[in-house]
């Protein structure tokens, strides 16, 4: 019973991790050149294009 619960819960968690990781892989920059909070404030305009360049290599 406990074994089955562990298998069920951890496998579902792993499926969620894989799904979220696949989604985030498309939306997050690969190499974060600064903290996300400072990006939202528009600091360092050079960072974003470079991050995109990494993705397109």
């Amino acid at each position: 019973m406990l074994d089955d619960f562990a298998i069920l819960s951890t496998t579902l968690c792993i499926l969620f991790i894989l799904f979220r990781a696949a989604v985030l892989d498309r939306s997050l920059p690969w190499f974060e050149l600064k903290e996300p909070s400072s990006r939202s404030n528009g600091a360092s305009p050079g960072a974003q294009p470079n991050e995109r360049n990494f993705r397109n290599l």
Partner: protein
Amino acid sequence: MLRGLFVVAAYLIMFGLGIGVPFILTLGYEWVDMFRPENILLGAFTAIPFSFLIGSAAIGFYFLSDRRDPPRIGAMIVITVLFAGWVTLTTTWAMVPGAAWAKWDWAFKSVLFSAFIPFVIRSRNQIEAFLQVFIFSLAADTIPAGAKTIVSGGGQYGPTLGLMHRNFWLGEGATLATAALMAIPIIFFLIKHQRIFPRNIWTKIGYLGLVPLSLATAIGTHERTALAGMLVLAGAVWLHSKRKILVAGLCIATGLVIIQIAPQSWMDRMATITHPSEDDSAVVRLQVWAWTLDFVRSHPQGGGFEVYRINQITLPGEDPDSPKTQDARAFHSAYFEVLGEHGWIGLGLFLSLLLLSLRSLRQVARLSRNLPHLAWCRDLSFALQNSLAVLAACGVFIGIAFQPLFYYMFPLSFILREYVRRVQSTPAVAAVEQPEGFALAR
């Protein structure tokens, strides 16, 4: 039957998610490698080549669809490939060819796949996903083992309380305890920096709940290796902590709680550490290690996988005139395992990987100091150093040289070092990368 259908369905979903996305397939391989469905399921399900299929697909899709920003072919990758080649070569002159090729079949894949991992795990999101899969694959064993230990007061020395009921991989108590203890620093890292799960109090409670379960798992195995691992973990955490008095107090308090709640059978087992001469398994270890040193004196190139099967050791019995003789006793040490099987060259390559991993992690800690955007790298480097310390220390007493634990820690340290290098080699980041005070001064 239902368990088998569920696991196979999850496996197929992983395949579906990973079509064209090799890092997802690599995570799927990691789950298969840690969870070992073929050893947990029964009947026809055991015949499915889970790891072969998903590992091949990951490599295939990497070449077909995602070769962006590959890592440098550095010392870590070169030595790993050399090590894979060397263990293949030593298998050609193996003393026990049948058993040697059988072990080579899975050990070679573990080593070589670790050289492939840095090609697909590159970004922060991918690194975190890799760590999450490691923790949750392991949790499939630590949740039942830890809960059973807490409820029943622990098991007994020998059979484990986890999912696997054979003396291999996480079915072996000392290996399960080592993996459970290694997970603890990574769990604390994830509590602080994870982004895949929603960041709320329930997630935090979930992660925090895994910590006592991991500790209980280590205790429940009744392995003395686990005690050594706990002491090394406490020392490593204290060494890397900023608040040393607080952490020392927490470690001592945890130790006192463990002593208070641990079952008497665990205390009795740990007490044998101080009387090694009265304990067969400690004497066997020392005898096998002495045999290995003697063996490599005449066979410096090693005797191939499973060479321990030819050993014969003599144990002092109750009557000194009639000592006991035992055959084919395992190495009980990752380092002596590599030395006996692959000689001094093999041990040199293996230790090089270990030292390079440690050096990479220390470099990451140094390079990311005072850089807010790399704070997670610094924290992860400390967490991985702590896990590596536990693994290296416990590896002295268990033959896990070719189990996945080493071959996930080696690439992870290299991947993190490569991540920092990629960020720092970006010209536009130079201004951002200065410590805040310095940047303001400009």
